[in-house]
């Protein structure tokens, strides 16, 4: 992977640089920001996260599984307790709900991991520790021949530091 990494100290400069880069179609842009800012979202125009689909599907699976366990248990060895029916659907809703939450939320987290690409095993290229603190980073993956253009754009918009990386 080859590209240019820029560190901005000002939010507006970074946003403008991104908009400029996008306009010039100068490669894939990754933005590093210490905190999620809507300005970047607007500038990058990514689609909505797909996490919700996993949440829904696994939540439904969890709910069915949560209902199924007690029903299966009750029927597997049917013992009468308190003169109640063997399969009591109403209280099993509790278990259905709890298992839905459990599986749904675990699925959400794992989906987030998957979609966001973590756990990430390597982070040697295109990252700077400053981005966790106060700086906004812009990492542009681009062809070697267009590198200079990218550097120029970034510098133009007030990047504090621009680095070529490979």
């Amino acid at each position, binding site marked *: 992977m080859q590209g240019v990494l820029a560190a901005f100290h000002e939010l507006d400069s970074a946003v403008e640089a991104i908009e400029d880069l996008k306009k010039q179609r100068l490669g894939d842009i990754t933005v590093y920001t210490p905190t999620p800012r809507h300005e970047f979202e607007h500038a990058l125009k990514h689609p909505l*996260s797909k996490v919700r689909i996993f949440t829904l599907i696994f939540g439904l699976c969890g709910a069915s599984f949560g209902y199924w366990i007690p029903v299966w248990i009750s029927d597997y*060895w049917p013992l009468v307790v308190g003169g109640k029916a063997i399969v009591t659907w109403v*209280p099993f809703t509790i278990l259905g709900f709890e298992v839905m939450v459990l599986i749904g939320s675990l699925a959400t987290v794992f989906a987030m991991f998957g979609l966001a690409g973590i756990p990430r095993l390597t982070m040697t290229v295109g990252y700077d520790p400053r981005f966790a603190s106060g700086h906004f980073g812009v990492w542009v993956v681009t062809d070697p021949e267009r590198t200079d253009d990218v550097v120029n754009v970034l510098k133009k918009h007030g990047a504090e530091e621009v680095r070529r990386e490979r």
Partner: protein
Amino acid sequence: MATTATPLPSGQRPNIPSAAVRFPAVKSYEQVDAEIAGTLGPSLGWFAALGVAILCMLLGATAWTYQIHEGLGAAGYQPPVMWGVYIVTFVFWVGIGHAGTLISAILYLFRAGFRTSIYRVSEAMTVFAVMTAGLFPILHLGRPWKFFYLIPYPNWRLIWPNPKSPLVWDVFAILTYLTVSATFFYVGLIPDIAILRDREKNPMRKSILAMLALGWRNSDREWRHFTRAYLFLAAFATPLVLSVHSVVSFDFAMALSPGWHATIFPPYFVAGAIFSGIGMVFTIIIPLRKVFHLEHYITLNDIDAAAKLCLFTSCVVGLAYLTEFQVAWMSGNRFEIDYFWNRVFGQWAWAAWIMLICNCVIPLSLFSQKLRRNTKWLFFLSLTTNLGMWFERFVIVVPSLSHEFEPWQWGTYHPTFVDYSILIGSFGWFFMWFLLFIKQLPVMAMAEIKEIVLPRLSHRFHAAAGGTEEAGFANPGLTDTTSGGSH
């Protein structure tokens, strides 16, 4: 009779104090990192506190060992009071846990700004409180070494737990709650751990932090999925928090005992849980902001808002108490009527009155704004809240059991040193984890605070905007709605 109305002397539009920018004293992202990460690193006082907590925990562990060896008779159970301090403390800790999830999840969904500074602490409190609470159901068993009978797993006996039992619902609810709140806590921590990782010099610690941060890089892709997932987790945690304490309340409400068998229990327990949890939040954050010098993060406005929540839940709890009496009175059921008469005038009246005064009377002082912003008073109030809520559970558990249907089996209850040691031990266990947490991980969500803090903007921008308003960029994601007044 005045014929002319008198206008305000200042002639200005009235304003409210919380209308100021959330953290006026926080200027930059680096300041956030420096100040919050700066609270890490052990100090002498911390070691002392941790030592005390560990000693308390060891006391409890010793008492438990002794109890396992001797049998439950070593504790103060006196039939018909078959549940005592342990179940009381179990419900108490589960309740404590609830405020944490409320603050981190429900207030997140409601976009309540005062949440930002206190939610990490609250969430940690939740995880540790549930860890503490989770010990008690095992600890109070007659044969704790057989606790795995409660867990549904395939076995050669071909017999499974009874899914109709509220205690099995408890197992599911508590385990789910523990898992989800721990996950929620951890997921929220990932960006902050990444910050710590990038600040860390010590290679050993750095590699541990790197592992915990899962390679988080603050990229837009990560943030995009992260914020979405966080939202859904919050959406799951919100009904979960309501369900868990409802399930805990089913332990009582599903039973026949007068004083237990009431449909009001789930909402009543949830309100009580949040009330007690906020009490515990106050107990923790008021000293914490002082010791860690975080007054400009956990501002009086935040505390004021939390105190209002406290007042509200106190009123709900008070209403629930009254409703219980009213239901008993109007039921015409002599068991219920006898029991509730006995509750306030019988053998355990003192406990009931501690409960009523601490939970319903003292919190009324929060109608005064002055007291809401008085941390000393709030700290005192948080202690009485904890006490009152512990006694609320005591009043539910012990007097109900001691005064049931069969007059011949009416009894009393005297806890022994074993019960008390385990009670103390639970506090030791909780605070041990809490103390370890506050020196290892940031007590505030740094990344989230940065959302509220104004980002650095270029001079060009200031010039263009005329240096007056940071219009386009001043939309901090989660400031509270009242802060709009300053724009």
